[in-house]
């Protein structure tokens, strides 16, 4: 594989950039693979990469119905954080944060990780107390957290509404300084390129239409490009998980919901952190191009449509204007939607299943992007060793029967409310 560096850039400039190697090939599916990963998104690509790199399993195919990186890894708002209170979440997402820090070097691909800090605004004393508790839990787990008072927040985002008459006064904030953003497309492409270079076949436009299961054991998958034999299958299909689980006679604690995001026209540097509005559901960061990247609530009804409706955009942006009144004259550039695999306790599921050789990676709700490296890492371990990594052991499917649910938000099994 061609290394990307300043030297290769200069060298290729002499040939007008016509001679770059393709970043990943477009192979025909083989008759058989050791492992098949369904879903060429961030998690699927990362899983294939760590299968090859950490476990030496390179006879791997990624089957993608559309094109790689066209689903949620290209639709999220690129936020990275590990500001969780529960131990299981804190340890898992903190592994992810550590992996983000040197992911560009690891992949030889600039994922533009920016540790600009994530600020969760508090608008009441009670909310600030809750943030203090969460921050203390984070610090006990070795995660960075700072409690900011009103004056400190004001120094960071002076243009927010700090007037005495506003409906939701800012009384302080919880900040995770290492939180931030990364370029989501680059994450998918970086993993794809490295996985491909180690022998993984990335097969696009290949829809899985069925599974061959014999005596409780997977033997192959049927696809729009023919039958492929395999001993192990990993599902990384986010919002489409139920559709594939149906073909395996699995009923899951998951509902599909549409979440929208939007960006404004690009403006000069203004917002230097990721900010979440604690009184509603609105969050915002400024991309390197200058666009304000904004998101908020689910549309609030089951959906597989990958597009939402304008009332929710209006609702989210009215929350945004309550905290940043100076955004009122920004023009909106575009909005889009993605399908969230909402688990019933708000926590992902990374586990084996009742079928030998079928592994499940789903239930990411709206937090899958930041987990891309750690999810791929532990899912590759689960597939390779046929047992969960200690970090995804709590994310088992059985927790919905044993009662060990991980309900960080505590909203109950009604994902459209959270």
């Amino acid at each position, binding site marked *: 594989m061609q290394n990307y560096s300043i030297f290769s850039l200069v060298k290729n400039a002499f040939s007008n950039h016509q001679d770059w190697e393709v970043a990943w090939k477009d192979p025909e599916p083989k008759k058989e693979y050791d492992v098949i990963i369904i879903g060429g998104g961030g998690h699927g690509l990362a899983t294939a990469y760590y299968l090859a790199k950490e476990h030496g399993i390179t006879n791997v195919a990624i089957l993608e119905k559309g094109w790689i990186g066209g689903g949620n890894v290209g639709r999220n708002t690129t936020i990275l954080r590990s500001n969780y209170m529960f131990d299981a979440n804190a340890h898992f997402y903190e592994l992810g944060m550590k992996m983000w820090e040197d992911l560009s070097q690891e992949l030889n691909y600039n994922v533009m990780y920016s540790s600009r800090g994530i600020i969760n605004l508090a608008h009441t004393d009670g909310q600030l107390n809750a943030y203090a508790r969460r921050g203390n839990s984070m610090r006990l787990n070795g995660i960075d957290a700072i409690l900011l008072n009103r004056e400190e927040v004001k120094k960071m985002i002076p243009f927010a509404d700090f007037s005495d008459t506003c409906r939701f006064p800012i009384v302080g904030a919880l900040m995770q300084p290492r939180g931030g953003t990364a370029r989501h497309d680059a994450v998918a492409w970086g993993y794809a390129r490295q996985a491909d270079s180690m022998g993984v076949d990335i097969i696009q436009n290949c829809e899985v239409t069925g599974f061959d299961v014999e005596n409780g054991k997977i033997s192959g998958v049927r696809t729009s490009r023919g039958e492929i034999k395999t001993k192990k299958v990993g599902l990384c299909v986010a919002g489409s998980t*139920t559709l594939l689980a149906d073909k395996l006679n699995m*009923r899951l604690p998951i509902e*599909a919901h549409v979440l929208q995001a939007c960006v404004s026209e690009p403006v000069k540097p203004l917002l230097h952190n990721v900010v979440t509005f604690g009184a509603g559901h609105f969050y915002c960061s400024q991309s390197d191009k200058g666009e304000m990247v904004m998101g908020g609530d689910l549309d609030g009804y089951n959906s*597989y449509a990958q597009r939402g409706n304008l*009332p929710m955009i209006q609702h989210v942006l009215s929350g945004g204007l309550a905290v940043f009144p100076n955004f009122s004259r920004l023009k909106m550039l575009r909005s889009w939607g993605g399908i969230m695999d909402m688990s019933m306790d708000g926590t992902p599921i990374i586990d084996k299943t009742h079928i030998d050789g079928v592994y499940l990676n789903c239930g990411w709700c709206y937090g899958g992007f930041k987990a891309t490296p750690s999810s791929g890492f532990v899912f590759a371990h689960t597939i390779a060793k046929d047992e969960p990594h200690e970090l995804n052991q709590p994310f088992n499917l059985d927790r919905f029967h044993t009662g060990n649910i991980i309900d960080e938000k505590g909203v109950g099994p009604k994902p459209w409310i959270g």
Partner: protein
Amino acid sequence: MLEIKCPYCGKRSQNEFAYGGDATVKRPNLGDEVSTKEWDNFVYFRDNPRGKHTEYWHHVAGCRQWFKASRDTATHEIFNTASLEEEL
């Protein structure tokens, strides 16, 4: 914008309604012998279909009645709505 036909008030904009989730989920009958697995299935597990979905809506900013709707989760088309007593 979804236009939802409340069985009591007629067609109104989506803004007036709140969603109530999958209406095919049935709570086990009181007094029945129920295994914990059946309870878990009732509380957590869903069919989550792509296509026709029977669901509850609440006309919360209108007549405040709950009702059922049949809606396509892939296209958002609403086929019909009915009061809780009626068949969809």
